[in-house]
């Protein structure tokens, strides 16, 4: 399977409209890069809104940001970084034709991804307990008196704090949605790898699925400091 160059040249993976496998792989890879470019613009709109309101309502944002638990965010950052490592190892395993290693790395990535979502769920539940979900979610009206009490030196306007938490949920929520899509992609990749579809001649889905995963990871690398860490020194 690994050395018959001529035999696999026109394998069943080659779609009719491509001249050769290299053209097909390059097209898929460029397509994913462009898609990730559009994703940057998509998240960019929300990052812009966050930065504008952070400047406008600085004190409310500073206090609200300090009310979020860093440990959970930090653990999640570590989890995602590990998952990126396993993705890279999965691509390498596919290139070298190591089917078993590939499957294990994909499963590990999936587990890290699910762990991230679980921890995120714990964090969101905390927000629910603390009455920090905007609006009147499941009978719990938004309330920031605890933040006002914890940061007496800052003027915390409930409406401005609500904008912070609106953006917090919009950003982490849409990021989590991307994670869920990623989990779906990796389930499909595991199934394909288990069938033995991937090898040194054909590993494009693993590669571009991995690109997507890395991107979602990188978005978190920006979200974590923006929402949790900026200017966290004691007042």
């Amino acid at each position, binding site marked *: 399977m690994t050395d018959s160059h001529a035999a696999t040249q026109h394998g069943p993976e080659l*779609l*009719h*409209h491509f*001249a050769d496998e290299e*053209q097909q792989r*390059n*097209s898929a890879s*460029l*397509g994913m890069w*462009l*898609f990730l*470019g*559009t*994703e940057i*613009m*998509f*998240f*960019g*709109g*929300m990052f*812009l*809104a966050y930065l*504008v*309101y952070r400047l*406008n*309502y600085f004190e409310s944002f500073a206090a609200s940001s300090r009310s979020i638990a860093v440990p959970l965010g930090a653990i999640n950052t570590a989890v995602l970084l590990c998952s990126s490592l396993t993705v890279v190892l999965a691509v390498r395993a596919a290139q070298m034709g190591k089917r078993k290693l590939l499957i294990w790395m994909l499963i590990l990535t999936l587990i890290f991804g699910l762990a991230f979502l679980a921890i995120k769920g714990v964090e969101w539940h905390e927000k629910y307990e603390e009455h920090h979900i*905007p*609006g009147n979610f499941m009978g719990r009206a938004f309330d920031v008196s605890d933040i006002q009490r914890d940061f007496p030196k800052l003027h915390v*306007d409930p*409406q*401005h704090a*609500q*904008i912070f938490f*609106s*953006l917090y949920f*919009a950003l982490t929520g*849409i990021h989590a949605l991307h994670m869920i899509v990623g989990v779906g992609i990796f389930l499909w990749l595991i199934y394909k790898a288990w069938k033995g579809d991937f090898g040194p001649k054909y590993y494009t889905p693993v590669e571009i699925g991995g690109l997507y995963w890395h991107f979602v990871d990188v978005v978190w690398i920006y979200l974590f400091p923006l929402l949790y860490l900026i200017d966290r020194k004691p007042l």
Partner: protein
Amino acid sequence: MATAAIAPEREDYLNKEYGIRSWLLTVDHKRIALLYLISITLFFFIGGFFALLIRLELLTPAGDLVQADTYNKLFTMHGQVMVFFFLIPSIPAVLGNFLVPIMIGAKDLAFPRINLLSWYLYIAGGALMLYAILSGGVDTGWTFYTPLSTSFSNTHVVTAGLGIFINGFSSILTGLNFVVTVHRMRAPGMTWSRLPLFIWAHYATSIVMLLGTPVIAVTLVLVVLERTLHLGIFDPRLGGDPLLFQHLFWFYSHPAVYIMILPSMGVVSEVMACFTRKRIFGYTFVAMSSIAIAVFGFLVWAHHMFVAGMSMYAALVFSILSYLVAVPSAIKVFNWTATMFKGSISFDTPMLYALGFVGLFTIGGLTGLFLAALGLDVHVTDTYFVVAHFHYVMVGGAVMGYMAGMHFWWPKISGRMYPDSWGRLAALIVFVGFNLTFFPQFVLGYMGMPRRYWDYSHSPEFQVLNVLSTAGATILAVGYLLPMVYFLWSMRYGKPAPANPWGASGLEWMTQSPPTTFNFDETPQVTWEAYDYENIPAPVPEEAFGD
């Protein structure tokens, strides 16, 4: 199906398979282009119907045909349907889909299944939009300005917003497909400097689609969230900032104008070269000006907001940048003019539309400079001057280009010739009707008639110009219906088209009309430059047309 029994002389993409399934599940870029053609034509006539009602209401100063609420819905849905469901997909999704792979010598777009997905997303978005229309409509203006759209309007903002959101992904995926195809699928010898200018224009358009559309998508998501969950993001009562909405909205919606006009410019370059039988003057400049328009187009959005309460210095910068974007547009107009100089010009239907494009786009572009000037803009903001300006660009520019392209490539698409004399007549009617509709609106706007009013009984002196405009719209409607009639007629009764009826350059004319499913029998090897008209014989007119 009785006719299917007669064996066709040669196989092409139209007669290869029959039946609904073979169309709805096709991955052939040419068939998908036809699916788009049918769907955008439907939306064009829906949007046109709203325009007709608007013009009828304005025939008299009093608000008599419809009331204020209905009128608000009419101009809103006219704008939303025409912008998002006709103009933006028009040339890229129909002509671009059909021609981009053929022009570069490829068998298909890079991602045929994603191409089909784009069409289904368009249909899903369009269905939501239709549902919003039929269940009572939207009245926010096509711009969805907050807080009107998020806190005050009682109409179907969420449904329409989601329809446009979904449709946006259709646009993004089309752009992605084009960029990858142009980068990766070019035939041997088809270097970047040999690409037809139509391809350059679509490449630039695709970049705008890729970078702009996600921003309107996330903006509409935020509008929907604010409207449904009352998150305070844009509504000042909830602490939000309505100016932020306007910045985000125009960050896409100004470049969207270039999504509409750039493909038309590509069409005009092809048509100009063919009917003057010359290489386009300054090929490199015309190609690079498309890229320059795409880049500068992203830096001018706030000229829609000069009266919205922005800082003076920001307004100054956006004014200067708006002037700059006129430079690459002017390069194109001058180079087309220089192409015609000493060319052997023939006035076939596509050329008439292309000439109409150059004239009307020039007026639209120059009045755009009026609006980019800070002082004058304050005087004419939200008047009919603005309405006239952008209709000169979008209808006089983009739609004229679309019509030029449809008439130029119809023989290739359908394999049939349309009657050229009818084509020329329709082009003339469109040109006259268009100017009669929209030129009076420049005057109206300058006199101070505000846009979006259903009743102008306080100033009856506006009536004469409004009557002229409505009369023009009626003529324009005839001009748009005619091509539909003779295109449909030609599919059955038209003379079979030869491979290259115009004696044009370009790979699409080197394959049969209509092409086979994989476009070429074997992958072409390109050894010549674009627009190599010195080495292509001019067609004898009688050969192409029976009349």
